[in-house]
């Protein structure tokens, strides 16, 4: 399930892209799920753990991936227990956050009203303990906190 803490949280990783640059592992990049996220968000193709082909930038390394994809990869693979700031992700990453949370309990912070779409989905608002299931329920709570 996806658990979202709205607003500042003590100890959160506020800048996930920088964390990613110093912590990512080669195996994360070449995993099929990561390759799909990189293809969808960055429109780029993983060639090897160290080379990604971008239609805009040419051959890049994982450090030149978008901040959104870096944060998604951390959410999927990092097992440090750190909580990542999902506001580093654009709305085009929202469906991937929900997908990642289908296979694990994923806790993130949010500092803006991300658009998760119409739903249905299950997102626990950690500030209240309430679970929201669709866009309207999400909107009813999110702007009380961000």
């Amino acid at each position, binding site marked *: 399930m996806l658990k979202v803490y709205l607003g500042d949280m003590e100890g959160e990783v506020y*800048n996930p892209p920088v964390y990613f640059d110093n912590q990512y592992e080669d195996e994360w990049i070449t995993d099929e799920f990561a390759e799909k996220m990189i293809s969808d968000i960055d429109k780029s193709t993983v060639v090897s753990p160290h080379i990604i082909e971008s239609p805009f*930038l040419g051959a890049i390394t994982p450090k030149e991936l978008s901040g959104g994809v870096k944060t998604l990869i951390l959410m999927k693979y990092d097992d440090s227990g750190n909580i990542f700031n999902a506001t580093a992700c654009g709305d085009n990453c929202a469906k991937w956050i929900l997908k990642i949370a289908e296979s694990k309990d994923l806790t993130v912070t949010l500092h803006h009203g991300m658009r998760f779409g119409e739903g249905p989905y299950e997102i626990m608002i950690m500030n209240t303990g309430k679970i929201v299931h669709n866009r309207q329920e999400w909107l009813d709570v999110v702007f009380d906190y961000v």
Partner: protein
Amino acid sequence: MKGAYELTVQNKRIHYQFTIKRNITVIRGDSATGKTTLLEMIETYSQNGISSGIDLKCTVPCIVLHGGDWKQRLSYTHNSIVFIDECNDFIRREEFASEVKRSDNYFVIVTRDDLPNLSYSVEEIYGIRMSKQYAGLKKTYNEFYQIYG
């Protein structure tokens, strides 16, 4: 500073062209639209000039502000356009807001966070998109668009 400033930033692959009209401009939008790439190009140019291979045209200096020494750098930056990338948490502090208020610089802030301490026009919130005018060319031409326009 007063008035509008036109910027062109380009290298062999990417071209950005936009106009900054007010003292605070916010850039947000989807991931992978080129926000961080723009700031990296500006920073590389500000550190290396024409040796960077980047062509930046603007009538005032452009710098990128980040990290723990932001306040010190800002104290000796004047009549410039100051770019700040997302995930720099100092932009949410009251201390930063008060520095902005008394500054003679323009600020371009990449963020999805609300910035309640700063007053800026909803018309000055932009995304970045590929320009349709140049679609299909080898180089990618990017422009700003008003998100709430």
